[in-house]
């Protein structure tokens, strides 16, 4: 039976290198330790990894259709594609996208898109509607707006898994104040289900789980 903090199918805590670690099954990507086909998912290098490790209820069971915003070189999205279903990875910088391509190559259900997450119309002809989960880690100013603009892709009972970086909004303000503002803005289109500071792994970052309202 599923309990609140169950990990999605395809994500397990396993003993790798003498330590219990989150892991998924797939081609290694960033020199992470492996054990057979399992590879460690390092929460210090991944905000979604941190959210799972800190037992936030992300509402994923495995096999979902995912839209990932801010894929960078693919560290986190590689793990997502390992346990999820069709995964759309949006990144707007060319350099990290080159690495993202190598991550996508052995993952037939990972679709790399060199697009700007603030302009969803430029990929709405590719990304399907009724997405189960949006994972967002763009680390630029206007993080709430990006989430709101991409809400159109999400199924009514879908989930937004958002990592907010305080310094990307305003370096001079107190992170707590920044988070409160982002949350308030987010509530224009989402109901926030859970928030948690990710400081153990990522200083001045907030993890948010929300669903469209």
């Amino acid at each position, binding site marked *: 039976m599923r309990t609140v903090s169950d990990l999605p199918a395809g994500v397990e805590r396993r003993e790798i290198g003498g330590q219990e670690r989150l892991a998924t099954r797939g081609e290694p990507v960033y020199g992470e330790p492996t054990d057979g086909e399992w590879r460690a998912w390092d929460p210090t290098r991944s905000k979604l990894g941190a959210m799972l490790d800190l037992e936030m209820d992300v509402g994923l069971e495995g096999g979902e259709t995912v839209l990932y915003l801010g894929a960078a070189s693919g560290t986190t999205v590689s793990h997502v594609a390992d346990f999820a279903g*069709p995964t759309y990875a949006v990144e707007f910088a060319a350099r990290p*996208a080159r690495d993202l391509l190598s991550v996508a190559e052995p993952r037939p259900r990972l679709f*790399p*898109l060199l697009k700007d997450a603030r302009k969803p119309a430029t990929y*709405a002809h*590719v*990304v399907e509607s009724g997405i189960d989960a949006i994972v967002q880690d763009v680390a630029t100013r206007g993080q709430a707006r990006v989430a709101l603009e991409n809400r159109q892709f999400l199924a009514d009972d879908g989930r937004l898994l958002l990592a907010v970086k305080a310094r990307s909004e305003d*370096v001079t303000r107190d992170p707590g104040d920044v988070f409160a503002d982002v949350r308030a803005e987010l509530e224009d289109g989402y109901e926030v289900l859970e928030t948690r500071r990710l400081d153990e792994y990522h200083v001045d970052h907030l993890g948010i789980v929300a669903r469209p309202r």
Partner: protein
Amino acid sequence: MTDTEAKGWFAAADRDDEAELVAAVRDGDASEPRDWPRLAIEAGFVDDEAEYYDALHEVTTAATSAVVTERERADDRQLVHAVRAMDDCRRTANELAERLAEWAGTIDEDAETGVEYARDLAGRTPDPGEERVVSLAARVAALADEAEDLEAFVERETPSIAPNLAALAGPTLAARLISLSGGLEKLAKQPSGTIQVLGAEDALFAHLRGQAPSPKHGIIYTHEAVRGTRPEDRGSAARALAGKLAIAARIDHYSGDYRPELEAELADRIETIQARASDDGGEDGE
């Protein structure tokens, strides 16, 4: 819903026309997402969902790869060549302008050195016997024009290739730093102490041979933050500037994100350093 319903990327062409499909993914758009896998099957583009996602993987990968290659080709290598060519054109124009001034002095008692004079001379109708010298003047003017066009190109392109460096250093100085270190990646791997003296290699080697004091700044000397600071504080200003430029280069290379806060931080730091002058001034009138 309107009668002009959004169309998916696969509406552009048949399954086997990869070039068209890639172009559609790259350049297409839609007002809203729809259930594309189902619509593609209904339209007969593919037979089932598995086939749809296979096609999508193939085409999105090809499209992303094409844009990445295109952007990489257009990026810092082009800038390095352009800024070097700009400097070469300018230096050559000045050298030739000197040669020209010497020669022109034999036919024109108001001959001057400099590109401006070359432009004047180039516009003249040569008297018999003056054809060569006027023609040379035209070459000097054309080289100077080319240098200006190259500078305009550098100013236009640098902000998209290195947004943070361009914002902090100005596009031309940013391009020169990239050029001096041999590319954006190399610059991103330099410690800030090296960036501080880039362009002062002669002075640095003299120092290493024990023949000169260590240089405090290289080409970043031309930046207002250093030049506008009184001489005894220029070392601090150059250090602060080089530190921020090193961070900017790393962000530009590794993420490409534009971070406006860097400029504010630099401005703050330089203001503090420059304030030392007025503090001292108040105390001992130095």
